[in-house]
């Protein structure tokens, strides 16, 4: 059974027409830790990928692909990394549905363009950062 209904799929397909280049969803799944959630997360990633030829999906197990997980800084499952021409630092822990689903689609688009919708002043300030910044955003689907 599909996670996304026909209307959502149509809307997302339209939104994903904005993709400026290839993007990759790197899915972290670990059956023994959170089997059901990981399977749903993986299924969601594959459904989204069906809506654009620009999207590919790779599934990793952090218990097996330890070096990759460490390199991405992923220490939870289910998790998703959204990558464009490079890893921009876009991570999702948990299944991004509801409000988070629109964030996922937005993340795919901005990862493909590499052009954030931020003011010049904000971008200048961020590019001048002298230390790493880790932003956690706690959210819920509704």
């Amino acid at each position: 059974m599909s996670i996304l209904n026909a209307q959502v799929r149509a809307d997302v397909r339209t939104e994903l027409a904005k993709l400026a280049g290839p993007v990759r969803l790197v899915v972290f799944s670990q059956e023994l830790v959170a089997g059901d959630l990981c399977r749903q997360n993986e299924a969601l990633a594959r459904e989204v990928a069906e809506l654009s030829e620009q999207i590919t999906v790779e599934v990793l197990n952090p218990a097996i692909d330890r070096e990759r997980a460490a390199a991405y800084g992923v220490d939870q499952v289910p998790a998703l990394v959204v990558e464009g021409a490079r890893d921009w630092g876009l991570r999702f822990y948990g299944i991004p549905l509801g409000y988070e689903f629109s964030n996922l689609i937005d993340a795919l688009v901005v990862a493909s363009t590499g052009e954030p919708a931020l003011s010049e002043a904000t971008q200048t300030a961020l590019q001048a950062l002298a230390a790493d910044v880790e932003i956690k955003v706690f959210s819920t689907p509704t």
Partner: protein
Amino acid sequence: MRLAQHMSVASDRVRSTVIEATEFPELSRAYRVLGVPKVVINERVEFEGAVPEADFLGAVLKAVETA
């Protein structure tokens, strides 16, 4: 929380993680998440609710201020 994501793309220094609070109750408890969205930056600065871009940037800059 699009601002966090766009900030990630704007700077190699910034990483953003959207966390589904109900699926990660231990993390939510550890960060005392009572309402969403809740933003935590570098374990130093936190706020709840949507804020304008300038305020979000201010929080990021505050989080990296040296003591």
